[in-house]
């Protein structure tokens, strides 16, 4: 997948509104590989909806979303499965980790699908993010900030052309935010992927190619 483009896209709940003033909704937007984008938003402007639409989780929008030249509405279940395994990664704002499993198991259950990252690499990230003592801790017993770091590692455990990170550092201090940004960019660069970061205020300090206001 080389590009993700949005044409005239708008969440259906906004369809009655006339005061849409956004760089993304009702616009023609193209995300390309190898680029870094920031989507800034106030709460309630549909930031998480945007991620859900692009990830094929929700379809309650108007307009079209294209991967390359293909309308995502036409994708079959198996196409979506393949996309989620090998070309599109998403760090959900609500993380979507499994509280019953340990941190490591949460990573493994994702990495087992493609065996994309080595155990050494994963452990290395745990070390860098300062959660090495949490390998075997149950996710349910970890703080949200710690969970965010686990979720970030998990989102890197697959091949991807684009990665969406939805408010990745909302509960992190500046040091950890910086480390996370470094890891994300290093991995994205390695894969030549496009990165789309969303934020409602505090955002990772990176050199963004383009900033959209939602």
């Amino acid at each position, binding site marked *: 997948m080389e590009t993700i483009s949005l044409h005239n896209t708008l969440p259906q709940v906004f369809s009655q509104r006339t005061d849409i003033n956004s760089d993304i909704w009702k616009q023609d937007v193209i995300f390309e590989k190898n680029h870094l984008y920031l989507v800034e938003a106030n709460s309630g402007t549909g930031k998480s909806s945007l991620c859900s639409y692009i990830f094929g*989780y*929700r379809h309650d929008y108007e307009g079209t979303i294209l991967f390359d030249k293909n309308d995502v509405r036409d994708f079959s*279940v198996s196409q979506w499965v393949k996309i989620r395994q090998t070309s599109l990664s998403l760090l959900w704002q609500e993380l979507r980790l499994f509280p*019953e499993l340990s941190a490591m198991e949460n990573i493994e259950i994702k990495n087992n699908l493609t065996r994309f990252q080595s155990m050494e690499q994963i452990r290395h990230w745990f070390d860098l993010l300062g959660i090495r003592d949490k390998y075997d801790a149950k996710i349910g017993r970890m703080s949200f900030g710690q969970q965010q770091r686990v979720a970030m590692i998990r989102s890197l455990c697959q091949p991807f052309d684009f990665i969406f990170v939805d408010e990745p550092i909302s509960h992190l201090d500046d040091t950890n935010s910086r480390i996370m940004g470094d890891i994300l960019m290093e991995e994205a660069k390695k894969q030549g992927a496009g990165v789309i970061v969303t934020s409602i205020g505090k955002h990772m300090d990176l050199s963004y190619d383009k900033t959209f206001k939602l």
Partner: protein
Amino acid sequence: MKLVWKLLRQHISIPQFAGFFFANIVGMVIILLSVQFYNDTQAVYTGEDSFMKSDYLIINKKISAVTTITGKSNAFSRPELQEIEQQQFVERVGYFTPSVFDVRATFDLDQSTSFSTEMFFESVPDEFVDVKSEDWKYVKGSKEIPIILPRNYLDLYNFGYAQSRSLPKLSEGILGAIKLKINIYGNGSNDEYVGRIVGFSSRLNTILVPQAFMNWANNYYADSESGTITRLILEVNNPTDENITSFLQENNYETDQDKLDASKTTFMLRIIVGIVMSIGLVISILALYVLMLSVYLLVEKNNTKLENLLLIGYSPVKVSMPYQLLTVGLNILVLIMAFVIMLSVRSIYMDMFQSFFPDFEAPGILLTVLIGIVLLVFVSLINVIAVYLKVKSIWNRKS
């Protein structure tokens, strides 16, 4: 997959699955047992007359004073045969072929005692005879003829003749081992054969030999392929059919009434077994319903987990698999347990059958196994599809 299972086994309710498990075992045992019991009792019913299948009728024309005086033939004519063959209740018709040569049988009881009698043979097509086919076979040129005797011959001897002369009583088994000396003459030939008794019939008052022998012998000793047809054997689809009785009366045909009675009994048995089997089926269906409810509940409780698995790239097929394997595994376990119980119950009543009917030969359990497996496949298929659809609905939730 191990991790997925670790995740999805959360909220599995042991009591619910145990409930399904035992309810379904009860249902399955009832179904399998009634099939097996029906099979076994069928063997007992037909066992009394072991060479005849159940739904056969033998008919002939009534012999009255008028026919005797006028010398009118009691043979069936062509149009009459055609009419019978066209009846709705008739599946197949076989003709009795009488012998048209002379037969003398000699039977040595011991050194000093022997019986000798003039007699006759009849035959029916082999497919109407239910003796093991290797027993009921005549090889051309062989000097051994398999024979089926009426059971009342044996009774006459045992309770009449042997009783009054203090001679040993004979069982069917012993007679089967004794050879009859048979002399056949006609057409200038006189040959000696050995007769081997392979079965007794209590409903068919004739001495049966294989059709192949009869055809050959009639031709050889009397230059005649077959004699006149005076008796017919009918295979009917339902012996309790009232049309049979009325048809026979209209045409002045006779049949052995108790044959119809026995058939009625088997028919009743079939109905009773049918009812019992439906009860088993209902219980199994209810059990299946309980299973589906628990699986649905499980999917519902693990909804978020399933959704998250789908969102991190697991396919609906893969996510459904653990629950599908769980239900199919349970079904297999139920079937195995049901078989074990069915077989142990069977061994109890089989002992009883054996003591009532020493000659009783138990039929196999193949049919029951087959039905069990068909049910298993059917139920498992429903489970597998239902779980998949449920997971698919989670996939589609937001669309």
